[in-house]
Structure formats: structure tokens, C-alpha cells
């Protein structure tokens, strides 16, 4: 039901590399899971509103006032690579 090409397409969308072995295994597993999930296709859902929040809350508004955030150097401490006060990454075009 979900073939190898679809798995590779979805993996590309998810920015996820998969090994050959993973592609084969996962297409079988996903098919089984999707078959189960498709049970929701049985229901008549016309006129049923989608859930947006399970508990009724009004819009959560707050005054637009600047607040202090974490210092730049503290945040960059966790970065695998940083330079000039920013995160450093490889070039988008190799």
C-alpha cells in the first residue's frame, strides 16, 4: 500500500536519511500501521467540528512588552559549531 518510492519521498520531506535496509523494513511497517489508522475513514464526519483545544480557553493575549531572553553566549554554548556570535553550518550549496 505504501511503496518504496513513497517512503523515500516522505523521508525527503522529513529530512531523514534512510539506509536501504530501513527503507525495506519501514515500508512494510508503515503499511500495517496505515491500514489500522484508516479505520477512521469508516466514520461519517460531516458537520463534526475538528478539535482545536480540548479545554475551552479564550485567546491567550499578553501585552507586547519586550522581556529579557537568554544571553547569546549561553545559548551558543550548546551549539555544535558557532562563529561570530551565530550558529555555523555548512554551505547550503556544496
Amino acid at each position, binding site marked *: 500500500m*505504501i511503496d518504496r518510492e*513513497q*517512503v523515500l519521498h*516522505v*523521508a525527503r*520531506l*522529513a*529530512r*531523514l*536519511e*534512510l*539506509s536501504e535496509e*530501513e527503507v525495506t523494513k*519501514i515500508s512494510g*511497517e*508503515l503499511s*500495517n*500501521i*496505515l491500514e*489500522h*489508522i*484508516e*479505520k*477512521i*475513514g*469508516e*466514520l461519517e*464526519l460531516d458537520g*463534526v*467540528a*475538528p*478539535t*482545536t*483545544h*480540548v*479545554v475551552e*480557553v479564550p485567546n*491567550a493575549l*499578553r501585552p507586547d512588552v519586550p522581556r529579557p531572553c*537568554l544571553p547569546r553566549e*549561553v*545559548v551558543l*554554548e*550548546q*551549539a*555544535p*559549531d558557532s562563529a561570530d556570535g551565530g*550558529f555555523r*553550518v*555548512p*554551505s*547550503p*550549496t*556544496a
Partner: protein
Amino acid sequence: MTDIIALTAAQAAAAVQSGELDRRELFEAYRDRAAADDLNAYLWVADEAPRENGGALHGVPLAVKDLFCTEGVPSQAGSRILEGYRPPYTATVVRRLARAGAPLLGKTNQDEFAMGSSNENSAYGPALNPWDRTRVPGGSSGGSAAAVAAGSAPWALGTDTGGSIRQPAALCGIVGLKPTYGAVSRFGMIAFASSLDQAGPLTRDVTDAALIFRHMVGHDDRDATSVAFPEEVVLPTAQRLDGIRLGVPDDLTGEGVEPGVMARFEATLAVARDLGASVERVSLPHADYGLSAYYVLAPAEASSNLARYDGVRYGLRREADDLLTMYTKTRHDGFGAEVKRRVLIGTYALSSGYYDAYYGRAQRVRTLIAEDFKTAFQRVDFVVTPTSPGVAFELGAKTGDPLAMYLNDYFTVPMPLAGIPAISIPCGLSEGLPVGFQLTSPAFSENRLLDAAHALEQAIGFDNSPARAAVSA
């Protein structure tokens, strides 16, 4: 004090308050046990007792699931992709509890990003069940449940998205409370499925659950979905259930449930009747679709939430010559098999052409499930089920079949879909292993839920000490 470990958290707090017990001695007793943990329940244990004093919880230490951010302390969500991550801030609920006098004891093992029902999806190896080390403690808050059951923590925090507090609590013979969605701030909780995730306690008894829950609730400016709890959380006192109506879903016939679990469930209903409750059947016509809706919604939200793990700002990075390859390699090496599965299911369900058929439909099914409960609660006070269809299973028994693993969540997914609270309490043993009894009630009715659970707990008289005794032996 002769046996500090035998005290419940509430008893330990009272002993500190009365001066019988020194809070440092209490912390050290648990720190020693947590450091000696051989169930792989802990991923990190505190070095020393905190210096600060005071607070209504009197220094009773707290084990915290790995996915709560704790400043300067590893917070890896059980994932390789966050290996070594030490956040620069602390989750609101952990901070609130520390301020209330429950200092951080350690970080507990879990399924990676809370995806799993056995703790076998942890990148750091599975936690073991203290009742039988060849079996799983349940998941995803498996380390928290194992630690509390084994007496290496007086209480612990977990999170529940589809049953991740209640199911491990059931499998380890302790109490687990999933609060109403929005009752507890999610700020600083590493997200799995944001519309379902909720933090809650795993404790030795219902009183401890109420005691800690009282200090967890409240609106947080940093979580726009959090709301003020409408009343004070009180400690449960009920000994009877006179006039209380319990509803058993009419599709709960025993099919798909282990006979031993069903027997304990029926026996607990008999206990409830003895306490004055009535038991009737209720119809939840869409509950059977809960699992399907859940396994659309949770992976869809997860695929979006987990997009942030890209090797740029924190955690693992795999070097590559170009940015896209850096992303894809980092995510390939950093995520485990179950996380990859769910990211792919979620991405598929949200992809162009499929959104309406999957996510859109699942959000509508969710509305029907919430309405089913509302209708049921017009007739009954609580809906009750077994927490899990089976007792703790053997390690590896279900890892080859993801779908079989998902079926563990049958009784626990409808409540987070509806946003309502639910509690699991131990109700006896089947094949020498604990069985959980689940009660659920309308949003923000935790006080009534805890009270009813307390009355049942007192009458059942479950002895959760064998697990601790077995571990000490």
C-alpha cells in the same frame, strides 16, 4: 528514623516538619539508592543535597523524567540526538516543585521522546521492572515508574500523551495521574505531541499524588495553553463511595484483555460496590476509533515538533559538506527506529493530498470522543477500565511488531484525546505482577477523582512493598 525508604512522600514530609527526620538525611538515603540503581531507571543522579530549605514539601526529593529540561543537567529525552544536552533553563513544573521543597534527585529513563509503551525505545537501554527484571516497566515514563516502585525515589514526574504515566504506573504497581490538559505548564517539557502532552506524578499512593499535584498546577505565562486550576487541590479523605456511579464502557467485554487482568478489574468493581458505589454500563461509541485517531495525531504533531533536531543549535551533529546532507545524516544517526517510524507516519499524514483524510479526520474523531465522554458523565461520575490490557510483558516480546505495541494503549488514549484527567491505581496481582485500575472524570475534577481513587485504594489495601523488598534482597 529506622526505615526512611518505607515512608510515603507525605509521611516523609511530615517527619521532616516535625523534626523527627533531617531533610539532608532523607535526601542522602534516596541519593544512595538512586546512585546504586541497577534497573537502569536513572540516566543521571544528583551529586549532593541542595542547600535551600523550606517549602511545603519539606525536602522530599523528586525523580524527574529525562524530557523535562533542567538547567545544567543532562536532559536528553531518552534520545541519542540530544546526547549531552544541558539546557540553559528549567521546566516550569520542575522549578515550581523545587521551590515548594521537592529538590531534583535524578533524571529517569524513558522511551525516546516519550514514544513507546515499554521503555525499550530508550537510546540508553531499557529500564527494568522491579517486580521481575526480565519484564518491561511500561512506558514511556518507565524509569520514573521503576524508580518509585523500587523505592529509589519517593515520587517522580512523568508525562502522558497516550498513557505514558498511567500504563507504567499500572505495570509497576504504583499510582499514576494524568491531569486535565492545561492544568500543568508544559514549558520546558521536550515536546512530543503538544495538543496531548501533559505532566503528572507517579507515586506510591493517592495521597502523595494529590500532595505533589497541588504544587504542579497553575497558569504559566510561558505556556499559552495552561490555565489556572479552578479550585484548591485538596488531600483525599474519602473512605466510602456512597452514591457514586461508575461506568464501564459497554464494549469492554474482556476480549483483548488478559483474563487475570479482567478478574482483578471485576474484583475491584465488587470492592467499589461494597463501598456504596453503583456500577453500570456506559456507551462510548467512538472509543474504538481512539487508537486510530491517536496514531494519526500524535505522529503528525511529533513530526512537526521534531523538525527542530537538525544539528544546528544543540545536540548531535553529523558533519557533511552541505547543509541538507548534514540535516539528513544527523537525523538518521540521532533518531531511533520508533521515532523514525512516527516522523514518517506523521509527515505522510500531513503531506499534500493526505492532510484532510488523516489529520483533518482525526481531529473530528477527537471531537466525537470528547462528546462521548461528556454524554457518559451526565449519567456516571467516573468511567472505569483496566489501565492496560495485560500485565508487564517480557523484554523484547513486542519490539518486532510496532502495531502490537500500540494496542497496549487502547484504554489510555481516549482521555488525552478528550483532554480529561485519569488515574491508575494498583488493584492487585495477576501472575504475580501488578494490575492497574483506571478511573477518568470530567476536566478539572481531579479532586473528586483523587478522592474516589483514595477510597478504593484504602479498601483494596494493595501492598506495593514486595517490589522494594525484592530489589533490596
